[in-house]
């Protein structure tokens, strides 16, 4: 499939240059928020919003930022955006913000954001930077959702909180795999995705 060159920053992070499984960024939060599907989806939306906005702001400021403090400038912009997202969630989606509690604050430390600001926004104009932010946010989200899907299904027998494994199975000796809910299995699930992805790519 031919994709016009201007859309490349949006499309490549989805698979070929995926932030989690190819650039190996943002692994930490991929382990933390994927025990259930719903927080994974909300986290995806929040990270995508913060990343796209931060990319645009840094890209717009890129010619004015003094090189010696560029990392600090990026941090200030990202931190401000994250606090705004957190405050808005607390005011308008209180239940969701309660569920994600500390993870919203941890968006600041998400390596994808600093990584993309350094690698892309500082050298590109705002529009491609915006597409790059959306693309990387979604690329991160795809992995999060896949991992959360398997962890919630096998670990709790539910999807988005609804029971999907019929009661009949439990009565005949099926048991949820408690290990799936613990962080190590997120790492192994991500590793399996990388394996499949590499096989397809080669």
């Amino acid at each position: 499939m031919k994709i016009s060159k201007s859309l490349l920053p949006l499309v490549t992070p989805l698979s070929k240059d995926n932030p989690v499984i190819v650039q190996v960024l943002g692994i930490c939060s991929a382990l933390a928020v994927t025990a259930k599907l719903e927080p994974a989806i909300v986290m995806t939306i929040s990270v995508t919003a913060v990343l796209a906005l931060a990319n645009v702001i840094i890209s717009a400021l890129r010619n004015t930022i003094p090189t010696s403090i560029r990392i600090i400038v990026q941090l200030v912009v990202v931190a401000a955006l994250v606090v705004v997202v957190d405050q808005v969630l607390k005011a308008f989606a209180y239940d969701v913000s309660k569920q994600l509690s500390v993870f919203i604050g941890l968006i600041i430390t998400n390596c994808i954001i600093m990584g993309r600001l350094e690698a892309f926004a500082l050298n590109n104009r705002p529009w491609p930077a915006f597409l790059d932010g959306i693309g990387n946010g979604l690329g991160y989200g795809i992995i999060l959702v896949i991992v959360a899907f398997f962890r919630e299904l096998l670990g709790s027998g539910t999807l988005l909180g609804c029971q999907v494994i019929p009661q009949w199975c439990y009565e005949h000796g099926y048991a949820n795999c408690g290990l799936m809910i613990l962080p190590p299995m997120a790492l192994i699930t991500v590793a399996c995705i990388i394996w499949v992805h590499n096989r397809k790519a080669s």
Partner: protein
Amino acid sequence: MNRQSNLYTVIYASVLVLAVGILLSVVYQGLRPRQLENIDNDTKRQILAAALIFPSEGQSVADLYAEHIKGAYIVNSNGQRVDDNLDPFKVKVATQVKLPADQRKLPVFECETSSGLKYVIPVYGAGLWGPIWGYVSFNEGSATIYGAYFGHEGETPGLGAEIEKPAFSSQFEGKSVLAPDGQFTSVAVVKAGHELASGDFVHAVSGGTITSQGVQNMLYNSLEPYKAFFDNIKSSNPDNTSKS
């Protein structure tokens, strides 16, 4: 102007930080009233949940609270009402539970339900990763538990976090925190499949041992000072003597 000079860098950093500071304070001030309302509503929802009243879709929690909660007051460890200007709703249970029993301010919420008057009492303690809290409602006349609600800040999803599910909290219904001889025993949380020789107990969350122990300690520590209050409500309702 030379963009790599020290002066430029210092001015740039100051302007940026000032701009961000102004932005954040505007956002904070603008959204604060809405956030406080959300927090209040969430607390009200938890108090009602302990009395097994749940808002239906689209129903305002504040209205439901005003409809059911008929009184709220503070008692001391002798079970007497304390005349205090403090709003029981605003009492910080987290700091109260650390005080010696006789110095605590003990909030009580009277809740009118379809099955009579219930007394809702807040509890607070420590789980595995952070604080856990809850509200427990007691029947008038018998001082047995009518319903319970538990919340947590960051217990492990699927394990310790299961204490907030009805599957765990509904086990408390009908349990008594007083032994037949009137001693305060609280309700124990024991490993599933095990029994307790005396006193009421519920089954722990499997895989959430430390959180479950946290619940047990929280109940004991938070409810013990209410012992005299329980004795009062046990003997308060003369209608009940005919039933027992």
